[in-house]
């Protein structure tokens, strides 16, 4: 009996142990299933390019209207969604109607006020993102691609992207991933239409007073001119001391402008014959640059508060005529100068009262050697079509249309209309409204009408945002010949001989002769988890501090000592490794561009 009891107890304990094991196993399986359910879908599904019926006639806009409305959900970046939807002047609604009636396309554009990188990381983590994301950084695009969230566009481009491939030319190769496929496109790519880049600007009316026959052409010439202007105008109307220049980014603008005048490309001197690169800190030019800027500071040409000044403060100082030069960003001279004075002083304003944008070159170099004005064909922003897209073919067809000459122009300037800034004449010319030929009223006659009344620029997904001119990749002969340097945002009225028709613009840009230099091969991307990214961040921080110390050195000797110290410090922190990395990226870009 006792044995039977023991046997029974033993059986029960085995049974209980088995139940316990099953419970543990079930729990483990549940946990695995829960986590497993969070993994991405099996990417082994075949990618269907398009289900759309593509037969039909091409309409006047170069588009085959689909039977069903093509709905595009786009995350367009940082911005005010409420303002966009409010559409105060009805421009967005007008463009929406045109897209629906003429293309049978509806675009749902989403903006968020938070940082785009942060939002995208959240989207990645939650898996909640739309079919198209544009205006994202290259690094974020690569993140999406690495996680299989971005669709392979290669085949779709071959089938439907003839305009895109034409307008990109060989630059399209640079968007290829390591597997040779294309998962991203560029946003607002193209040739830089600007006349000016880094600026060594000066108050034109005050420079005229000096009676110089010729504008300065070197940084030293700039220093001399600024010094004389400040001697003639030591205080402004409010009795405040005047200075030649200030900064909104802790003196970095002085450095960037000087490096550009010396032919450096993004901090490096590149020797085309040898393919070598050297950082400015490791060059004698770097010391020369440091000494000159330090001299400017010691002699009172640079605002002593330049390290604490923000954009609004700088604008106030320029507009109140406390800052008489513009050393760095060219358009600061416009917003802080004549664009303000022309509206504020109205009757008494004269066109000579402005900052002239001036290009200079280092001694021994020519203007062609400088990098004051650069062109980065692919720009810094990217567009991807995500795995949430249900019809890649149709989306690619739309993007292809957007990259046609007419589609590009409509995306930037709104649909042609007698109430818009442009229309299509009977002979096919894209004629602009006479009102926009006056530069002084651009804000009201062009920007307001184009953007707010006609929705221009509201939906630019993967469009060429730069110079719409005729060359081997594009043909914009139809654009009204009265305007030039046309982009999706801007234009400049010109005479028949190509010179600017506005006298003020001729003064502003008449002394800027630096040609645009293509620096597309010098694009560098950094993997957040790579050691070199930390090195780069460390060096950026160190150079920012050391540059500030160099500028504010009390004497020439101290400046030279600080420069040498900065050089040694940065080399010890891995500057040469970083230089090697930048060089390798440059070489890789060239190989990609050449299709290797």
């Amino acid at each position, binding site marked *: 009996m006792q044995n039977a009891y023991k046997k029974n107890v033993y059986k029960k304990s085995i049974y209980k142990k088995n139940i316990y094991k099953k419970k543990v196993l079930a729990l483990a399986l549940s946990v695995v299933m829960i986590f497993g359910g969070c*993994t*991405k879908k099996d990417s082994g599904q075949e990618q269907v390019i398009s289900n759309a019926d593509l037969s039909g006639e091409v309409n006047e806009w170069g588009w085959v209207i689909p039977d069903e409305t093509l709905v595009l959900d786009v995350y367009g970046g940082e911005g005010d969604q409420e303002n966009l939807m409010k559409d105060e002047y009805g421009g967005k609604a007008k463009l929406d109607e045109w897209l629906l009636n003429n293309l049978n396309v509806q675009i749902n554009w989403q903006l968020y006020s938070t940082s785009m990188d942060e939002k995208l*990381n959240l989207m990645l983590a939650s898996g909640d993102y739309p079919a198209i994301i544009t205006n994202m950084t290259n690094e974020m695009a690569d993140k999406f691609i690495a*996680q299989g*969230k971005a669709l392979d566009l290669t085949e779709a481009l071959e089938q439907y992207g003839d305009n895109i491939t034409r307008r990109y030319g060989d630059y399209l190769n640079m968007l290829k991933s390591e597997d040779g496929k294309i998962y991203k496109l560029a946003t607002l790519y193209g040739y830089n239409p600007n006349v000016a880049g880094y600026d060594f600007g000066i108050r034109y009316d005050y420079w005229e007073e000096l009676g110089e026959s010729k504008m300065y052409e070197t940084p030293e010439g700039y220093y001399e001119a600024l010094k004389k202007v400040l001697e003639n105008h030591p205080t402004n109307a409010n009795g*405040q001391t005047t200075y030649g220049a200030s900064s909104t980014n802790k003196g970095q603008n002085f450095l960037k402008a000087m490096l550009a005048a010396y032919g450096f490309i993004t901090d490096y001197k590149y020797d085309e014959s040898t393919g070598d690169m050297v950082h400015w800190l490791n060059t004698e030019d770097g010391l020369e640059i440091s000494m000159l800027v330090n001299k400017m500071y010691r002699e009172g040409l640079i605002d*002593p508060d330049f390290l*604490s000044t923000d954009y609004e403060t700088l604008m106030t100082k320029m507009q109140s005529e406390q800052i008489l030069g513009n050393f760095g960003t060219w358009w600061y001279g416009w917003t802080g100068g004549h664009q303000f004075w022309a509206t504020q002083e109205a009757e008494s304003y004269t066109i000579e009262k402005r900052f002239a944008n001036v290009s200079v070159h280092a001694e021994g170099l020519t203007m062609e050697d400088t990098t004051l004005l650069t062109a980065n064909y692919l720009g810094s922003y990217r567009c991807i079509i995500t795995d949430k897209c249900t019809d890649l073919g149709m989306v690619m067809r739309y993007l292809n249309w957007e990259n046609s000459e007419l589609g590009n122009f409509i995306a930037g300037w709104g649909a042609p209309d007698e109430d818009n800034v442009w229309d299509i004449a009977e002979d096919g010319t894209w004629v602009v409204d006479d009102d926009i030929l006056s530069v002084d009223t651009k804000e009201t006659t062009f920007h307001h009408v184009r953007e707010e009344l006609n929705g221009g620029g509201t939906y630019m997904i993967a469009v060429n945002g730069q110079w719409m001119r005729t060359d081997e990749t594009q043909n914009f002969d139809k654009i009204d010949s009265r305007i030039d340097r046309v982009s999706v945002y801007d234009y400049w009225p010109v005479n028949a001989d190509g010179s600017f028709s506005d006298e003020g613009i001729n003064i502003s840009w008449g002394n800027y002769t630096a040609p645009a230099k293509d620096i597309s091969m010098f694009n560098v991307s950094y993997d957040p*988890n790579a050691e070199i990214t930390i090195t780069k961040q460390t060096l950026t921080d160190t150079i920012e501090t050391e540059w500030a110390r160099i500028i*504010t050195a009390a004497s020439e000797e101290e400046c030279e000592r600080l420069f040498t110290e900065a050089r040694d410090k940065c080399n010890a922190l891995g500057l040469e490794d970083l230089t090697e990395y930048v060089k390798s990226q440059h070489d890789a870009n060239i190989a990609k561009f050449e299709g290797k």
Partner: protein
Amino acid sequence: MKSKKKSNKINEIIKSFKTQRQMWAICMVALVWVLVFCYVPMLGNIIAFFDYVPGKNLLDCTFIGLKNWIDFFSLPDVWRVFRNTLVISGLSMSIGFVAPIIFALLLNEIHHTLFKKVIQTISYLPYFISWVVVASILLTLLGTEGNINSILIYFGWIEKPISFLNEKSMFWGILTSSNIWKDLGWSAIIYISAIAGVDQELYQAGSVDGLGRFGKVWHITLPGIAPTIILLFIMNIGNILNAGFEQQLLIGTPLTKEVYENIDTYVYRYGVQIGRYSFATAVGLMKSVIGFGLVVIANKISAKVTDMRLF
């Protein structure tokens, strides 16, 4: 025996639920909010131990253990950053902690009610001003063409303007002063209400015993608000590694970076800005653990020495 104690405790809790159900109902919303927004997100700290990539399943990310902390302590200048953090928060805790108490005591001595209320209101208005505005005010005051330099030059005390915001030696003082100016009134509120709770009869008794004004403050008011002071101190000590973020970014310049860079600004640049979220989380977790440890230690010391404790 143990299970009997446990069941007694459970019964007590159940009894409390029954007798104070209305209070529990009121608190439940707050408790759920704290649980959802404060405790549940703590689980996210797990990414500190992984090489987390947003969008990737956590189990697909590489487990790296303590590598983020090793990376942090291997960064150049990390000890300088620690020094700055401790100095800035130390100044804030020493001077910044004492100032509201002194202010509350002084305010308590004012008998003119209207004047007292006006001063009190003015004192806590700066609390509502954002650091962006404060930075602009500081620039206007301390810039080379600012008011301070103008006054000093006008009276002939200096010949050339002083660049206050670019002087390393002045940065901590400027930062601490602006912190005190901003928080003084607001922080004093709790002490003012604690002082209001001191029994007035004690002051009368003190007068009878011959205590003067200072005597009453020292022997009556301060001991009366001592529990408040100690409890707030215990809570504040957990913030010893939080030395601010916006003020450094707004007021700091490259010339003062050596003294303003603290853990938060450092991690922002080396973590968040370059997308290393695991790294940023790891340092944040470290700060929280250290802060919590200090609070526990301070609580224990307080319990032993003064018989007062937070928990």
